[in-house]
C-alpha cells in the first residue's frame, strides 16, 4: 500500500480494495515503526486519525468525496488543527493545543482526508536542515547521518520514507523546495496568495506560503486542488476563481513540451553550484529538450543580493510576528519571575531556541529607530529589483529551470554552528519568495554520496498548472521520482 501513488490509493479506496481505516492503520504502523529512526513526527494520535478514517469510509460508502478522501496526510506542525498539539517545533508552544483549524486543515477535512500526524520542522520555520527543532533533528531517509533539509524536514522525510503519500509544508525561503531536493521528493510552493495563511502560524507574513510534498507532480496537483482557494479570513488571500491544478497534466505525443521555452539563469550555474548537482540538473534540462522544449539563457542580475535582502525582511517580519509569544494567553510561561517585564523576557528566553532568538534580534535591530531606512526600506527596494528581474525573464521564457540547492544533503552538525553558511543553502530558492512566485522541486537524479538532487522550476504568477504539466511530462519520460530509499521495507 505504501508504494501506491495518491491517485492509485484513491482508486483502490473507491473500488473497496481496502478501507481508509485499513490504510490509516497501515500508515500509523509504519510511522510507529520508523519514527524512532527518522524523528519525522512530533505528534501522532492513532485514535483521532482512525476516527477520521471511519468518517472517510462512510463518505466513500455513500459515493461522496474526492481524490483525497480517506488518504492519510502529514501536516507540518505550524498548521493549527483543532484538538491537536501544534508546536511549530518550539518549546514556547510545546503545550499548545490548537483551539481552531487552519483554513488548510478545514479544506483537508472537507475533502475527507485523514490527519496522519504533525510533522517535525525547524522552529517557527526558521532553518534549512531541521536541526533547529526543540523536538530533535529529523534524519534524511536516504542517509540517517544527513539532514533532510528544512524547515519542512519532517514532511519531506515522511513522504520520502513512504510513511504517507503526501504532506503539507510551508516555504518562506525554500522550506518546501530545498527539503524536497534533499530527499528525492516533489515539492510545490504556490504563488503568494494562492493558499490561505489563516491558522498557519506566521514566520514572515509577506513571504510565507503553504504548499505540499508528494511523490509526483500528478499527486501534487491533487493536493493543491484541496489546499488552494480564496479565504476571506486571510487578508492576503487572492480572490480569484478556484482552479483545477490537474488540467495541464494530459498532453500526449512524442514531443509534449513543444513550444515550451525553458529559461536557464546564468547566475544559477556558477562555481557556487556543486558539480555533482549541476550534472543531473543539466541532464534533466536536456531531457526536456528531447521532449520538445527550447532552452533560452536568461539573466537575474540581482540574484546575489537575494540572501542578504531576505535576511533583513524575514527577520524583521519574524521579530514582529513572534512578539505575540509572551506567556500571557498561551504557550510557555516562565515558572519564576519578578515582574511583568521579567515574565516576558524569561518566558521568551526560555521558550525560543538559538536561531529564533538570533532572527528576532536581527529583526528588531533593522526595524529600530535610526536603522529602519538603511536596512528595512532599502531591502524592500532591492526586493522590487529582484522581482523585476523575474518579470523581465518571463518575457523570454515560460518557466525557469535550475538547481534547487547548491549541494546535496549535508551531514548533521556540519553547518549548524555557522548561521551564514546555513543561510547560503537557500541561494536558489529565496528570490522566488521575495518575488512571490510559484516554485517546485522534482527529483532529477543523484549526486555525491548517492544523495538525491532536485530540479527547480520557477513559474510566473499563478502558473502552477503549467509548471505541474511540464514536471509531469518530465516524469513520464524518467523515473527519478519513483526511487525510494532502502530500509523502509514492506
Amino acid at each position, binding site marked *: 500500500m505504501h508504494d501506491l501513488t495518491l491517485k492509485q490509493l484513491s482508486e483502490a479506496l473507491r473500488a473497496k480494495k481496502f478501507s481508509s481505516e485499513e490504510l490509516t492503520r497501515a500508515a500509523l504502523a509504519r510511522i510507529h515503526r520508523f519514527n524512532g529512526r527518522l524523528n519525522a513526527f512530533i505528534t501522532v494520535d492513532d485514535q483521532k486519525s482512525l476516527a477520521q478514517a471511519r468518517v472517510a469510509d462512510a463518505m466513500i460508502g455513500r459515493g461522496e468525496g474526492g481524490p483525497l478522501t480517506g488518504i492519510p496526510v502529514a501536516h507540518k506542525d505550524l498548521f493549527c488543527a483543532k484538538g491537536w498539539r501544534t508546536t511549530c517545533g518550539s518549546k514556547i508552544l510545546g*503545550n499548545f*493545543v490548537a*483551539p481552531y483549524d487552519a483554513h488548510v486543515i478545514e479544506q483537508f477535512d472537507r475533502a475527507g482526508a485523514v490527519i496522519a500526524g504533525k510533522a517535525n520542522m525547524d522552529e517557527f520555520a526558521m532553518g534549512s536542515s531541521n536541526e533547529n527543532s526543540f523536538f530533535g533533528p529529523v534524519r534524511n531517509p536516504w542517509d540517517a547521518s544527513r539532514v533532510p533539509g528544512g524547515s519542512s524536514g519532517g514532511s519531506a522525510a515522511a513522504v520520502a520514507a513512504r510513511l504517507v503519500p503526501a504532506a503539507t509544508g510551508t516555504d518562506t525561503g525554500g522550506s518546501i523546495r530545498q527539503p524536497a531536493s534533499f530527499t528525492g521528493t516533489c515539492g510545490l510552493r504556490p*504563488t*503568494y*496568495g494562492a493558499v490561505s495563511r489563516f491558522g498557519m502560524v506566521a514566520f514572515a*507574513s*509577506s513571504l510565507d506560503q503553504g504548499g505540499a510534498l508528494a511523490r509526483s507532480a500528478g499527486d501534487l496537483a491533487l493536493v493543491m486542488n484541496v489546499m488552494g482557494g480564496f479565504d*476571506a479570513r486571510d*487578508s*492576503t488571500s*487572492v*480572490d480569484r476563481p478556484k482552479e483545477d491544478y490537474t488540467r495541464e497534466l494530459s498532453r500526449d505525443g512524442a514531443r509534449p513540451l513543444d513550444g515550451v521555452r525553458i529559461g536557464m539563469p546564468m547566475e544559477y550555474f556558477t562555481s557556487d553550484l556543486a558539480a555533482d548537482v549541476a550534472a543531473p540538473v543539466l541532464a534533466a534540462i536536456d531531457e526536456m529538450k528531447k521532449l520538445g522544449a527550447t532552452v533560452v539563457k536568461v539573466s537575474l542580475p*540581482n540574484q*546575489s*543580493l537575494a*540572501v*542578504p*535582502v531576505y*535576511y*533583513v525582511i524575514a527577520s524583521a517580519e519574524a*521579530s514582529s510576528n513572534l*512578539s505575540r509569544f*509572551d506567556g*500571557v*494567553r*498561551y*504557550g510557555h*510561561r516562565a515558572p519564576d519571575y519578578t*515582574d*511583568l517585564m*521579567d*515574565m*516576558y*523576557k524569561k518566558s*521568551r*528566553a526560555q521558550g525560543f531556541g538559538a536561531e529564533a*532568538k*538570533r532572527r528576532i*534580534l*536581527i529583526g*528588531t*535591530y533593522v526595524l*529600530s529607530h535610526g536603522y529602519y531606512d*538603511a*536596512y528595512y526600506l*532599502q*531591502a*524592500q*527596494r*532591492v*526586493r*522590487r*529589483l529582484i*522581482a523585476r528581474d523575474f518579470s523581465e525573464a518571463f518575457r523570454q521564457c515560460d518557466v525557469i529551470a535550475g538547481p534547487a540547492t547548491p549541494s546535496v544533503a549535508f551531514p548533521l552538525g556540519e553547518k549548524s554552528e555557522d*548561521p*551564514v553558511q546555513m*543561510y547560503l543553502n537557500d541561494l536558489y530558492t529565496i528570490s522566488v519568495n521575495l*518575488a*512571490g512566485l510559484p516554485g517546485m522541486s522534482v527529483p532529477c537524479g543523484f549526486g555525491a554520496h548517492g544523495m538525491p538532487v532536485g530540479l527547480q522550476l520557477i513559474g510566473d504568477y499563478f502558473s502552477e498548472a503549467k509548471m505541474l504539466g511540464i514536471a509531469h511530462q518530465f516524469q513520464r519520460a524518467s523515473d527519478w521520482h519513483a526511487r525510494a530509499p532502502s530500509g523502509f521495507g514492506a
Partner: protein
Amino acid sequence: MSLSHDEILRIAHLARLEVREDEVAALQQKLGAILGLIDRMRSVDTTGVEPMAHAQDLVQRLREDRVTEPDARALYQSIAPQVEAGLYLVPKVLE
C-alpha cells in the same frame, strides 16, 4: 560589522528577550556575521525604486460591521497559563 555589548543588550530589551552576560560575546560574533552578510545589499543604488511590501498589489479588504464570530472565550482560555473570572492574569503593572 559588529554590535557593541550595550547595543546587544538594548536590542534584547526591545525584543523582550533576557540575555545573560555570558551569552553576549557569542551573540556579538554570530549577529555580527549575519549583519556582515546583510551589508552587501546596503550599497545598492535604489534611487527612484519604490519599496515592495509584498508580491500582490492588494488593498486591505473591508467587511460589514456585523457580529460573525461566536463567543469562544472559555475554549480559548482553557489553554492559558493563568486565568480567573474570564481574565488573563499577569504580574501587577501599576502599584
